[in-house]
């Protein structure tokens, strides 16, 4: 052992050392973005979807097209988009059904109900600006892209199902083979190629409108200017990007 030649108090040194170690340890996981200086932010899109409820005829072609386009499992309980039927009876009873997600259309409503009013309602992931599913993901496998689209990282998802629990709209499911969470991506792969999402492309009555939220001239913003717009479950402050026109008060 050498002779000690203290220029520094041992106690203080150890304290500083521990402190420095802790600081490095804490800062370690935080990787600061490499985006600084990339400067492409100003040109990114912000996408949303409008749904004109009183144009939907419940043919379910969107549900079918979505499954074809996105290779969604064909079993009748996995959907990225689906259509619900609301029946409000004269006794103010509200009945909601969605046989197989509406993929084969809807049978005529049972005769015993005396219908006050009735309509179809397409549903899908709302691509929330304030997405609960993104917040709960423990590994960062679901995230919001610059375009405002909530996406899933197939390779990185660990299938823990937190996000499925967290989604207030029931828009997510666990893929039965891949064992990863899945949901609507606004057909992210089509957008880059200048195509609209498959459900929008296929809708025969134009009940679905897709477009830019930031441009004043886009079909979507025009739709939102000319119609009274509502979102689903606004009280949750999820800031959905799927906007409904002529939504009935009974819709939950």
């Amino acid at each position, binding site marked *: 052992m050498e002779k000690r030649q203290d220029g520094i108090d041992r106690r203080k040194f150890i304290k500083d050392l521990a402190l420095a170690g802790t600081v490095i340890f804490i800062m370690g996981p935080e990787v600061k*973005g490499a985006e600084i200086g990339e400067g492409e932010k100003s040109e990114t899109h912000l996408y949303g979807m409008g749904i004109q409820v009183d144009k939907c*005829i419940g*043919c379910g*072609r969107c549900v079918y097209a979505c499954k074809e*386009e996105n290779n969604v499992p064909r079993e009748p309980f996995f959907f990225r988009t689906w259509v619900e039927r609301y029946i409000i009876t004269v006794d103010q009873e509200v009945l909601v059904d969605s046989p197989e997600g509406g993929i084969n259309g809807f049978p*005529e409503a049972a005769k015993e109900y005396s219908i006050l009013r009735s309509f*179809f309602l397409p549903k899908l992931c709302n691509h929330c600006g304030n997405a609960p599913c993104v917040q709960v993901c423990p590994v960062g496998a679901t995230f919001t892209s610059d375009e405002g689209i909530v*996406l899933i990282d197939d390779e990185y998802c660990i299938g823990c199902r937190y996000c499925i629990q967290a989604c207030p709209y029931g828009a997510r499911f666990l893929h039965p083979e891949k064992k990863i969470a899945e949901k609507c991506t606004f057909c992210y792969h089509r957008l880059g190629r200048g195509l609209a999402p498959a459900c929008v492309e296929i809708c025969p009555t134009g009940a679905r409108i897709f477009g830019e939220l930031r441009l004043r001239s886009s079909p979507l913003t025009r739709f939102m200017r000319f119609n009274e717009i509502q979102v689903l479950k606004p009280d949750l402050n999820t800031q959905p990007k799927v906007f409904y026109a002529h939504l009935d008060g009974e819709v939950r």
Partner: protein
Amino acid sequence: MENPLFRLIRFGWGLISLPDQVKRLIFIFVLLLIGWFAIRSRLVPETFGEKGHYRRAALEANAALPVAYVGQSDCVLCHEDVGDLKRKSYHRSVTCEVCHGPGAAHLEDPETNLLFQPKERGLCTLCHGYNSSKPTGFPQIDPMLHNPNDPCMMCHNPHDPKPPHTPAECGACHGEIARTKSVSHHASLACTLCHETQEIHKENPRLAIPGKPQSRAFCGTCHGETADSPKHIPRVELDSHGNGDLCWQCHYPHYPEVF
């Protein structure tokens, strides 16, 4: 003879003029630190955090997925005749791939990847089968009554589905109203009695929207105390009945009820 490596370490160890226990602590600490970075670099995948709290590569993976529905504008490049026909028809808003299915494979090799031609009635009735939840005005037929044994294509060209002749009944398109009315006290009244309708409305509905009754006096022509109408029709005092509000604020005209 001692291992030269150990001797080197021992020599280096001696050079640092710190108390031995501190040097051990530092040594352990450095080991932990190296361990941390080693584990981290294994666990955190490449491109993670480049744009946010996710893998940038996931964006590219999502964007690279194949497309199945190519869109109508591609189909009409080769099928110009069908496109021209359909563009002017009732089905102008119904894209090719609704009926023929996704066309990406057909586009690559039209001759071998033939598209499906839906000839059975099921596809058409998915959209046109009567259902009381469908919006008013959408053309609907009752598949059980509308020429039940023949394929739709016998009378309607799917690319230009003009009805062979103009529908005689308003109920062809306003099915729900017609049905409601048919079981109501107003069953005997013709639609056109209350709705002045130009013939062209039945061919091209949006060209001429039919009129609707505007005033209480209209219903009064049958239900007023002094009206010149059949005796069995119930009468009300036109001036006072219902506070002077429009009659259809209380009575649905297609199914008038007395509460």
